[in-house]
């Protein structure tokens, strides 16, 4: 490659990002000679959004929290006032509920996701008797706060922690979902103002979901765990556990060096060599010690085994869902090809979300088909067909019998 162009390319790859914060804008798009492979894109993405977790245009959230020095009677009175302000569940908005859209598979439909809180792990058993672990996630106090139609969104300068699919640009609207209602005195006036339109108490955590216009939900609607069905597959996105500054053995699983027993001098947990003998530089992306964890991780295709409707809990497959306990996670319908095939116009999850009907009370626990239920009678041998004991047939004899 031309020497001058090579220098320019490396400079573009390693210098800090320009003020435009969208990943879709490629700074060196003008220079087309250098093919940006997947790995290069991933490296750049990792470098560019590593430190910034939020958009500068968001409002200041935390406020209050000082000792107001009220008398004990006044303190309990104000707590009652806070409770009563948001006590009634009916929406204060004058106009009626929005029309529900139709679920379509051909122009694909994307439903909202839900904001959950990871609680911990539990063992479960399937009907074959195999044990597996599930993560218990609570969909705590979820409400839809806001909807922006696709015409109002500037997709070029959109700040997302994960880039939005290029073919969805201009076609999806943005729903803001909040979790965990809180005392308004813990937040600033600007933050509390975000919830006035929806008429819900201010939430501690907000997140965005990009949805197709037919699956819009009116702001102020609550979202429950029954937004998913048992047996559905979900994608979970959460910030992984922060391990801090870790060495190369912990971070990438390098083998390190021998212990002191074999006389190794100052080489136990190091990286070793950082490059080849001839190339007089360290390649970008060389794995070294550094900050580990605390980054958004997406885990795809987790099965929903159980749902508890009383506490809005999902039991998701696997103990390795990212994040520590009491960490927030975004839960959406799975985008895996095989799982999407199973969803049809007739058989789809509650669309646009689950709305509780008057008079219809759900059971407290809902189970997937293949989970083993301890409250049901155990599987007995009467249910199982046992073939009569015979001698082993050879292939020739089987062929003879078939004729």
């Amino acid at each position, binding site marked *: 490659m031309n020497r001058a162009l090579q220098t320019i390319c490396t400079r573009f790859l390693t210098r800090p990002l320009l003020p435009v914060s969208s990943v879709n804008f490629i700074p060196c798009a003008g220079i087309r000679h250098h093919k940006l492979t997947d790995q290069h894109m991933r490296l750049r993405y990792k470098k560019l959004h590593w430190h910034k977790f939020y958009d500068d245009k968001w409002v200041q959230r935390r406020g209050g929290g*000082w000792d107001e020095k009220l008398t004990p009677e006044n303190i309990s009175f104000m707590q009652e006032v806070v409770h009563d302000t948001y006590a009634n569940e009916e929406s204060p908005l004058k106009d009626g509920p929005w029309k529900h859209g139709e679920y379509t598979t051909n122009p694909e439909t994307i439903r909202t996701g839900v904001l959950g809180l990871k609680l911990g792990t539990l063992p479960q058993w399937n009907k074959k008797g195999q044990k597996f672990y599930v993560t218990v996630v609570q969909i705590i106090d979820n409400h839809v706060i806001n909807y922006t139609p696709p015409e109002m969104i500037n997709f070029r300068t959109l700040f997302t922690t994960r880039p939005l699919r290029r073919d969805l640009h201009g076609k999806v609207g943005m729903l803001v979902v909040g979790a965990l209602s809180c005392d308004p005195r813990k937040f600033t006036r600007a933050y509390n103002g975000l919830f006035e339109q929806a008429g819900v108490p201010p939430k501690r955590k907000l997140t965005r979901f990009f949805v197709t216009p037919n699956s819009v939900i009116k702001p102020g609607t609550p979202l429950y765990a029954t937004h998913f069905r048992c047996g559905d597959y979900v994608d979970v996105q959460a910030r992984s556990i922060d391990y801090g500054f870790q060495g190369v053995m912990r971070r990438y699983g390098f083998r390190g060096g021998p212990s002191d027993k074999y006389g190794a001098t100052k080489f136990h947990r190091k990286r070793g060599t950082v490059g080849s003998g001839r190339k007089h530089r360290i390649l970008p992306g060389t794995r070294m010690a550094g900050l580990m964890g605390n980054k958004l991780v997406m885990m795809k295709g987790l099965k929903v085994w159980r749902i508890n409707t009383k506490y809005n809990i999902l039991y998701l497959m696997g103990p390795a869902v990212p994040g520590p306990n009491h960490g927030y996670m975004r839960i959406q319908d799975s985008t895996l090809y095989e799982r999407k095939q199973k969803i049809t116009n007739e058989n789809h999850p509650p669309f646009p979300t689950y709305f509780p009907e008057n008079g219809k009370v759900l059971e407290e626990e809902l189970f997937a088909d293949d989970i083993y239920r301890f409250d049901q009678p155990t599987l007995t041998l009467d249910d199982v067909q046992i073939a009569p004991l015979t001698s082993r047939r050879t292939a020739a004899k089987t062929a003879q019998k078939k004729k």
Partner: protein
Amino acid sequence: MMKIRSCLTFSRRFQSTSSAQSRNHLTNDEIRAHRLRIFNNERQVQIERIRRVEKIEIDVQDPIQSTKLLMNKNLSTPLHCARHLSSVLVDRSCLALIDDQHIWDMNRPLERDCTLKFLHFMEENCEEQNRAYWRTCSFIIGYILETAFKSTYHVELCSFPPPQFQAGSFAYDAQLNLGDWKPTRDDLRCLSIQAYKLRDRDLRFERLDVTQSVAEEMFAYDRFKLAQIPHMLRLVTPTDTQPRLSVYRMGDCHVDITRGPLISSTKQIGRFEFSAVHPIDVPSYNETMHRVQALSIPAQLHLHYWTFDYLLERAKKKNNASVPTLGKAKTAEKLE
């Protein structure tokens, strides 16, 4: 100053002891300047009466430090005593307690040997301080009503009811001469901003005891105040020969009649929000006036905006405190 004719007719509908001069040709600013001029003259006269500076011994009893101070009689105020001690006392004290009995203004000269205690807003028992604070805030509403409107409109202040916390707000009754003016949220916001500007100016409240003649000269252009003066006169000190009226001046801006003690300075105002304007019927003066209501808390009390907004909702309701009445001379209690 340009003298603009008032477009409303002026008619006297009640009996008054002395005649109020016609104010058709004067703006609110000019009338205010006239009052201030008379106040300054009277104050100068009273200061010159002190021929000789006598010393008095003040025993300051403060939980932080207790000392004995030698101050000037009829010249030194509790604020001067606080300045000798600490800036914390200067900033936070709103009232002084003389001999554990009498509530005293911070800017009122001390007259004899006594024990002195400073009162602030975050004590256990601050009933008096709170009442003085809301009284001061009513006083401030009067100033804002006189200065906030354009010079084409004449505002005639009447009086304000004594501070009652049950009512949820403090108020000032005035004849706004604006017809059916319903203030919008932004209008009330603009009025509140005037109060915050006062806080930044840090104005002191000074008291003056004047005789009836001086008072009538001072309020020559205020017909409501003139009617009230005979009812407000009382003997201030035992040695006084003639009954006097207590008049307060804020910085060098505003003068008004009020009996009770006011706080030390406008710096101690925290949040101040005008909540509502309600029409009231005043049978004593045979007129329909406006009651301008507001809510305020001192700067020492640091409330979250949400709690204050909740109190403000209550303050928007009509304040049912007593309407201005011209009762008998001895038992009149409409101003405090």
